[in-house]
């Protein structure tokens, strides 16, 4: 007889934080440290990752997705140590529980939406019997059920982005890493996406990198501001908003807080 609840569902978690980085450094190219001494702990919820261009956001997300290896420091994901000396492991069990949407989301034009998400589910080692249902659920969650059997090349940019989100959530990840997921979404889709984020954030550790401060204000329980490879601020959006004054640039309290923080990173670092 099949049991309704698997042993893995009721097992206690053996970690305090889904993502725990201590003194993390990641080298990109020969010399540049894109992530330079990062201490970060993230639990369940939606975390917005803000930072100027070139701050190392993409490198950080790639490292968390285990496709780049840390150069120094320790990184623990779901209690499992990543990289380091024993860095030759493939982290298969860990990767099954990670969802990842890269900044440049490449796809196969001749595949239909369903075929692509199915292919990704297969690559993520979703059990074969569960793939059709998991794919349907993921496609419905991003609102593409009516286009599921259309070729990817017939989709608009925003729809392609939603396919990217669907493939990221198809394995019901515990850690979800989204690199600029709202690029190309129109305002209505962005609203729907924020709802989805909040829904996912109730039982998943979601890290969303973005340029759009208003996305963070609307959907995130926690803001992480990152500049020059270091953490400048971590805390709730309200706290970031309270740091800005009328003299700082920006249209909303959160934007003013963000620009205040980037003007004087030292001051910000002491306050988290």
């Amino acid at each position: 007889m099949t049991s309704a609840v698997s042993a893995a569902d009721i097992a206690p978690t053996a970690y305090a934080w889904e993502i725990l980085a201590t003194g993390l450094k990641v080298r990109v190219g020969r010399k540049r440290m894109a992530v330079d001494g990062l201490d970060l702990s993230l639990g369940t919820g939606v975390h917005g990752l803000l930072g100027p261009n070139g701050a190392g956001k993409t490198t950080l997300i790639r490292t968390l997705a285990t496709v780049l290896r840390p150069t120094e420091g320790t990184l623990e994901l779901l209690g499992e140590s990543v990289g380091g000396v024993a860095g030759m492991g493939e982290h298969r069990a860990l990767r099954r529980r990670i969802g990842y949407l890269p900044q440049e989301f490449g796809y196969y034009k001749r595949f239909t939406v369903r075929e692509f998400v199915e292919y990704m589910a297969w690559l993520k080692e979703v059990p074969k019997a569960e793939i059709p249902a998991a794919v349907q659920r993921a496609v419905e969650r991003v609102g593409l059920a009516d286009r599921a059997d259309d070729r990817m090349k017939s989709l608009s940019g925003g729809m392609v982005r939603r396919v990217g989100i669907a493939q990221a959530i198809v394995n019901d990840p515990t850690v979800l890493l989204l690199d600029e997921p709202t690029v190309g979404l129109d305002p209505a889709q962005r609203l729907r996406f924020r709802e989805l984020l909040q829904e996912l954030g109730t039982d998943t550790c979601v890290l969303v990198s973005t340029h759009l401060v208003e996305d963070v204000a609307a959907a995130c329980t926690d803001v992480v501001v990152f500049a020059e490879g270091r953490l400048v601020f971590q805390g709730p959006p309200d706290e970031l908003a309270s740091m800005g004054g009328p003299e700082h640039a920006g249209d909303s309290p959160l934007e003013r807080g963000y620009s205040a923080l980037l003007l004087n990173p030292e001051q910000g670092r002491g306050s988290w």
Partner: protein
Amino acid sequence: MSGERGERGEHASARIVEGYARGGAGLAADEVWAVEAHLEVCRGCRDRLSAAVGAGVPAVASLVDTVWSGLEPQLAATAPMPRGRRWSARLSRWMTPTMVPWLAMVVAVTLLALLLDLVGTGSGSGSGDVSLVLLFAPVLPVLGVAASWSRGLDPAYELTASVPRAGLQLVLRRTASVLGVVVPALLVGGWATGVMVAQWLLPCLAFTATTLALGGIVGVTRAAVALAAVWAAVVVAPTLAAGRTAFALRADGLPAWGLLLVLGIGVVIARRGAYSVLGAHR
């Protein structure tokens, strides 16, 4: 209790099915749990439940009707899942969808080499005793392997690198499918031109293994380009210039190829973790 637990061959009693349909406090919690677990797997008991609901519990029956009428417009808009999948989608488990043109090119090159060989043997002119099939055999799979793990040719390379299945297993799967296409083509070519199988198969496998081994360090595409260049400089150019088979391809060179193959496989196994990060895609 065991009579209602839904072990194979045993089904929920009429009392339990009716009690479950009515709801409320008629059933103990463990009975509800057991009957729900059984209903999930037993179609017969689900039919009995729906009959019991229809006959005895109009409130639930009307609720179900309301839910259905609310769902129907949505169900009509959702396309039913197509039954069979296209073969190209299934093929993608063995090679990246962008690899088909590359394999076609590899086979075309083999056929062209074979054709030139046959024409050359027939007329007995030029580099008559140099087999082009033999000359190209080692580099053909290398091109296919490069295409299967490349940043430029696979748009979803970053996604692929991040999945649990990425790594040595997937690299070997794709390599095997490349060899599965190239080796039969070469086999036909070798048979038609009368070249000994080991004479081209061993260099072919050795080059493939070396590509993967180097690929774990500098990236598969770079490794393939470097090896193809080395092959052109060391073997193809001297052979064509001298008009006779280079030493590397003669039968006495076979142990060296065997050694290279074993070395390549050894390095690949020792560095198997390298294929699951972005570096291998360069």
